[in-house]
């Protein structure tokens, strides 16, 4: 098992992306649902709501992107494989 570090790194990358996608997915779902409800109640505020929604979604999905970056670091710039 001289390439154990590589194997564990690939598993770690897969784990980081898969687990890291769950939370932001649930959060984005709740955010979009709330925005839909708000637009249905007040269609005249749709412009402000959708702008705030986009910014908020960007904030939420940053967490998933962080996990993606960790996975990419493990795959391409792994500090432990030399």
């Amino acid at each position, binding site marked *: 098992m001289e390439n154990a570090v590589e194997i564990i790194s690939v598993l770690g990358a897969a784990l980081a992306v898969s687990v890291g996608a769950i939370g932001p997915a649930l959060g984005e779902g709740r955010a979009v649902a709330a925005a839909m409800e708000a637009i249905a109640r007040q269609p005249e505020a749709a*412009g*402000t709501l959708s*702008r705030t929604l*986009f*910014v908020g979604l*960007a904030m939420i*999905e*940053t967490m998933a*992107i*962080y996990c*993606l*970056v960790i996975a*990419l*670091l493990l795959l*391409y*710039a792994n500090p432990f494989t030399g």
Partner: protein
Amino acid sequence: MDASPLAPDVLFMLGPVPISRAVATTWAIMVLLWGVLALAFRTGAPRGGALQSALEIVVTTIAAQLREIFDRDPWPFLPLLGSLFIFLVLANLAAVVPGVTPPTGHIETPMALGLIVFLSVHAYGLRARGTRRYLHHYLEPTPFLLPLNLLSELTRIFSLMIRLFGNMMSHEFVIAILALLAGLLVPVPFLLLGILIGLIQAYIFTVLATVYIAAAVGAVEA
């Protein structure tokens, strides 16, 4: 596909300076923008041609959007934020041209743009509020939050950079994997999705930069 997105792929050497593909694409976009602007505004007349009118519509639309966020005169900030948005749209949609990869899909271009936003947030804030009052807003609401305020200055710019980079780069990866797995027509819907992603990311980057600058000059709370 097997090239790392974190390492620059060097196209050629300009003397001792390596020129990466992203930098060359950025230069091409700059030349294109400069050419279109020079063509549109060559007369400088108040009532120009069709191209000048079209560009004026773009500028006034961006100004109206910025006014909604700033809630004050957006024109002092328009040169930075407007050119940021237009450059990002062109850069993110560069993949539409065959053989060109978006420069925002490599880490160095988002890093440079994030640095520009980071420096201009403080420059606008210092100019609008004065040194004393600008530095004092780091002590609000209580001085105990000073480390957190300083940390958030860094992390929000870092996340701005990583968000643009991660979205553009991951989409390139998805396209590459799809092209590897399934032949000719399967990646087409994903390429269309890429146009949407590019536009949304350009919009989000600009809106977040606007919100940060608006918070620095004291227009909104953020």
